[in-house]
């Protein structure tokens, strides 16, 4: 019996649904609460920080030689900047921590924080890309001339020729608004000092407990073994929780300093304004096409507003460098020129966010395809057919290797599901009645599960990638899988148990996956980049194979049969072709308590360790959206949304679909709703969920999902990552659909979110021009 491929209910859910899950805030009982005093000014010099006498206040001076956070890339086109744990001289964004106060309740701490007075001499901030790039723009960091933290370039030899020989050159500027990842659980941590051992246990809402330990230990100048980091239940992270943050360093420092338990539980206002943002980008794109619609060359200028600081360990290169490397996406392209810059501004820093740069580059590339198709009189499918990669492995112009996928097949399948011809007829009728329907598609390849080779190519000083897994069967026959990765709500424990079950013959219910505890798990990089199932899953499979061999060795001794004749299934070992069998529990007992009988496993016992570090694998999908645009209000409603996804071998189809649902919802949010807004003075204006518009159930349509399965050997399990695809593909499909709906007015969309107000504005402008 195979467990892989089954839509097994998640082992995580009963606990969570009954309210027994423990998140960081649940662990804060009895703790003293930290509250940060944050800068109300986007840019300025700190003159004084004062509190009434006796206020337990921590400032930069108290922290002494605690080191700042300084993420690095090993490349000459990149400037490293250091982020202080608490600002002492200057503040460079609204929300930057300046001091912390500590009290017995969260409310008291908030009262105390209000009594701290900070005098700041304000200076004119740079908020937007244009302001930061203006000739005499003030500098956010002295070291970064023209506020440029990264300025990376790529160019092939034939770009200029390709553009001169082109039949059509399509050119536009595409902008993506700033988003906040908005995990349901904001960040938070409880740091508990243990007087006996002198250690601190930090329970933090993080995606990367091991990296957090490294980062905090380095900042405090202590051995990593002084610190234990636990990720308890994590209520979503989406990238926002894969960075080292000043608040956690301060919390551990305070726990050690005051020798007590300290909690910092972020509130929603802090989370929306002072945690991390993402995707504030502008792309200038030129595409050269021949008369048959073949893409000859691309010239891209990629600008990312990365806010005030870089982030550790991903760095502020994560958006621009991935955009630079992955711009061609699923398309064949030989000539490519790109410049990708990370621009510092006096705004909240950026962290990776589900999809990383690809929601934006995919939207831009897919708009490019539709624009070129319209110019050449081709339909949207045909132009893509002529350009999609169909031969694998495919090495992109930037050197990225794509393993086998189904780029064209997914598109054709999606087109069939939605029945484009029938839609076109309906669209015509609707138009004659003044009702504006549109259909848009996007085709993309999602790089998933990148290991160290992929990150080394980006020249990250801290190069993430491998995952290690330890499997241990205990004397009662239960299996513990200790993984370095650390889930944040995606059901990883269930899928890994399914993988281990198939390898070892021990049923998932008898497998406990232990994650998110640096004392209990091997060093690993955590969860991001659609990597956990691919890489930790791969390691589970490799370790599982070894463990099965060890079980077979024990069984062969006990059952007096050749090890190769032993089959293990559902907790029992059988001798093939006989009725001889024994329970794994009995084997475990024997292995531990009569170990002298089993010299073959003397070294390891019933345990196995494996490490997996792949290059990475591409999943792919096609999204098609049908929308209706209301000409009187500008409102866009999504009528249908079809996804044909190829994630290789599905370990648990239900979980895969869950990933797609959540991802598409965030993609629709990017396309139509969410936008972090700053005023000219650098004040964030979207500090609550009534202003930062996260779509609800009512705004997200029913999704129609189909799967294709293309085998790959780029992943030992055959599984490809699927964590980000929904977020990557949805914006492009929606924007193309809105553009299609508004085509009769000559309006095309090159920005997101495309709000009703903007739709109406563009319609009015088009009317005015037509007159």
């Amino acid at each position, binding site marked *: 019996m195979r467990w892989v491929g089954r839509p097994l209910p998640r082992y995580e859910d009963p606990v969570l649904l009954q309210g027994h899950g423990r998140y960081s805030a649940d662990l804060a009982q009895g703790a003293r609460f930290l509250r940060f005093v944050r800068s109300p000014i986007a840019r300025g010099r700190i003159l004084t920080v004062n509190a009434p006498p006796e206020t337990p206040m921590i400032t930069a001076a108290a922290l002494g030689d605690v080191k700042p956070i300084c993420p690095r890339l090993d490349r000459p086109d990149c400037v490293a900047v250091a982020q202080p744990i608490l600002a002492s001289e200057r503040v460079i964004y609204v929300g930057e921590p300046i001091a912390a106060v500590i009290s017995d309740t969260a409310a008291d701490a*908030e009262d105390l924080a209000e009594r701290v007075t900070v005098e700041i001499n304000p200076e004119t901030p740079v908020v937007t890309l244009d302001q930061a790039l203006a000739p005499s723009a003030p500098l956010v960091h002295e070291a970064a001339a023209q506020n440029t933290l990264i300025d990376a370039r790529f160019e092939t030899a034939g770009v200029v020729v390709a553009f001169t020989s082109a039949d059509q050159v399509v050119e536009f500027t595409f902008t993506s608004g700033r988003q906040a990842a908005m995990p349901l659980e904001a960040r938070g941590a409880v740091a508990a000092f243990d007087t006996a051992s002198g250690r601190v246990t930090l329970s933090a809402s993080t995606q990367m407990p091991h990296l957090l330990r490294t980062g905090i230990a380095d900042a405090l100048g202590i051995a990593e073994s002084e610190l234990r980091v636990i990720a308890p239940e994590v209520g979503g992270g989406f990238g926002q929780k894969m960075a080292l943050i000043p608040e956690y360093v301060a919390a551990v420092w305070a726990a050690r300093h005051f020798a007590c338990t300290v909690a910092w539980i972020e509130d929603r206002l802090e989370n929306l304004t002072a945690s991390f943002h993402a995707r504030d980008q502008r792309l200038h794109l030129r595409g050269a096409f021949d008369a048959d619609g073949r893409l000859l060359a691309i010239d891209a200028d990629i600008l990312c507003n990365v806010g005030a600081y870089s982030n550790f360990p991903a760095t502020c290169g994560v958006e621009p460098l991935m955009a630079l490397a992955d711009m061609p996406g699923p398309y064949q392209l030989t000539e490519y020129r790109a410049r990708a810059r990370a621009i510092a501004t006096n705004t909240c820093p950026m962290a990776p966010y589900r999809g990383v740069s690809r929601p934006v580059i995919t939207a831009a590339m897919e708009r490019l395809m539709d624009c070129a198709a319209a110019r050449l009189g081709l339909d949207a499918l045909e132009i893509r057919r002529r350009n999609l990669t169909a031969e694998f492995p495919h090495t992109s112009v930037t050197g990225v290797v794509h393993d086998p996928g189904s780029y064209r097949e997914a598109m054709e399948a999606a087109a069939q599901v939605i029945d484009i011809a029938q839609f076109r007829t309906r669209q015509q009728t609707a138009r004659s009645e003044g009702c504006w329907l549109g259909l848009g598609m996007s085709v993309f390849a999602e790089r998933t599960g990148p290991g160290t080779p992929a990150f080394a190519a980006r020249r990250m000083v801290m190069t993430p990638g491998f995952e290690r897994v330890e499997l241990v069967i205990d004397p009662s026959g239960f299996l513990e899988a200790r993984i370095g990765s650390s889930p944040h709500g995606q059901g990883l424990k269930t899928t890994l148990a399914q993988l281990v079950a198939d390898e070892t013959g021990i049923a998932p219910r008898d497998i406990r996956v232990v994650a998110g505890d640096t004392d209990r798990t091997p060093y690993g990089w955590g969860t991001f980049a659609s990597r956990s199932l691919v890489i930790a899953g791969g390691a589970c499979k490799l370790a599982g194979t070894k463990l099965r061999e060890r079980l077979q060795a024990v069984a062969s001794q006990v059952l007096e049969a050749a090890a190769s004749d032993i089959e293990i299934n559902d907790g029992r070992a059988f001798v093939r072709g006989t009725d001889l069998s024994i329970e794994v529990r009995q084997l475990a007992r024997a292995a531990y308590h009569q170990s002298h009988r089993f010299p073959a496993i003397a070294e390891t016992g019933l345990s196995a360790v494996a490490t997996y570090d792949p290059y990475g694998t591409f999943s792919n999908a096609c999204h098609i959206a049908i929308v209706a645009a209301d000409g009187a*209000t500008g409102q866009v409603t999504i009528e249908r949304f079809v996804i044909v996804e190829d994630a290789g071998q599905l370990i648990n189809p239900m979980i895969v679909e869950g990933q797609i649902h959540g991802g598409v919802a965030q993609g629709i949010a990017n396309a139509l709703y969410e936008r972090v807004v700053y005023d000219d003075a650098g004040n964030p204006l979207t500090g609550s969920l*009534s*202003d930062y*518009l996260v779509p609800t159930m009512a705004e997200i349509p029913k999704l129609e999902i189909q799967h294709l399965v293309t085998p790959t050997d780029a992943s030992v399990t055959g599984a490809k990552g699927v964590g980000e695809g929904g977020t990557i593909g949805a914006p492009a499909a929606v924007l193309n659909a809105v553009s299609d709906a508004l085509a009769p007015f000559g309006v095309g969309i090159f920005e997101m979110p495309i709000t009703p107000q903007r739709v109406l504005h563009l319609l009015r402008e088009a009317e005015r021009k037509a007159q």
Partner: protein
Amino acid sequence: MKPVSFRYFAPRSVDEAIDLLAEHGEEGKILAGGQSLVPAMNFRLARPASLIDINRIDALDYVREDGGQLRIGALARHARFETPVARGVLAAFLPRVARHIGHLPIRCRGTFCGSIAHADPASEWCLVATTLNAELAIMSRRGRRNVRPNEYFAGALTTTLQPDELLAEIRLGLLDDSWRTGFAEFSRRAGDYALAMAAAVLRLEDGRIVDARLGVGGAADRPSRIAAAEALLTGSDGGPDIVREAGNIAAEAIEPLEDIHASTVYRRDLVRAMVRRALNQALTR
């Protein structure tokens, strides 16, 4: 996100509540459904020293018809209006409005009178009260007074209600079968505050509009009746040109708010569209 500390009172009777209000004056605040006050306190935008919780005063929890009016007590929750509270045109109209107020949990706590007291520019009930020229019954230790919306709403979140006063009851005049109603609202997400909304209440005789009440909300600092559009509608057959023009008049008549969700220009566009929709709804029903 934790409120400043406050004193808490839970009176059992109206008399006790107004005594407490008199005693605490500017420092005290009524707690009704808490759906506006509590978030404001958590953001520390509101810092009342004392809360006077009226949720235990059963005498305030009613909706009843009486003397040609629908009387709504201070504890009647929004959710109560999701199904008709009585027979007739008015009671059938209110559910179409009520479902636009926030989300179900909010409607189960928030009160009709609390909305009128809070006076959010985008409150549906404030628009209904204005359009139907409701009577607002106010009590304090100084006595009782009744006011009409035009002398009550003074701007965004501002009214002529005094700190020692309790808004005890709202009275809406019942509508007989000759009345038609329409309501249209635009918000970014289901449950969001309206960026613009319109309520149309028309009396028809032999296919002609003989009385028109047209209210617009969400777009300006307070709801308003659009007198010029009402005049245009009255005596007309409510044909497409009239409806279009009424929308234009309303769009020009208001002084629109501007915020991150909608510019003044866009708010006028939305008012135009919502007025037309509300009128069409009333005229085709």
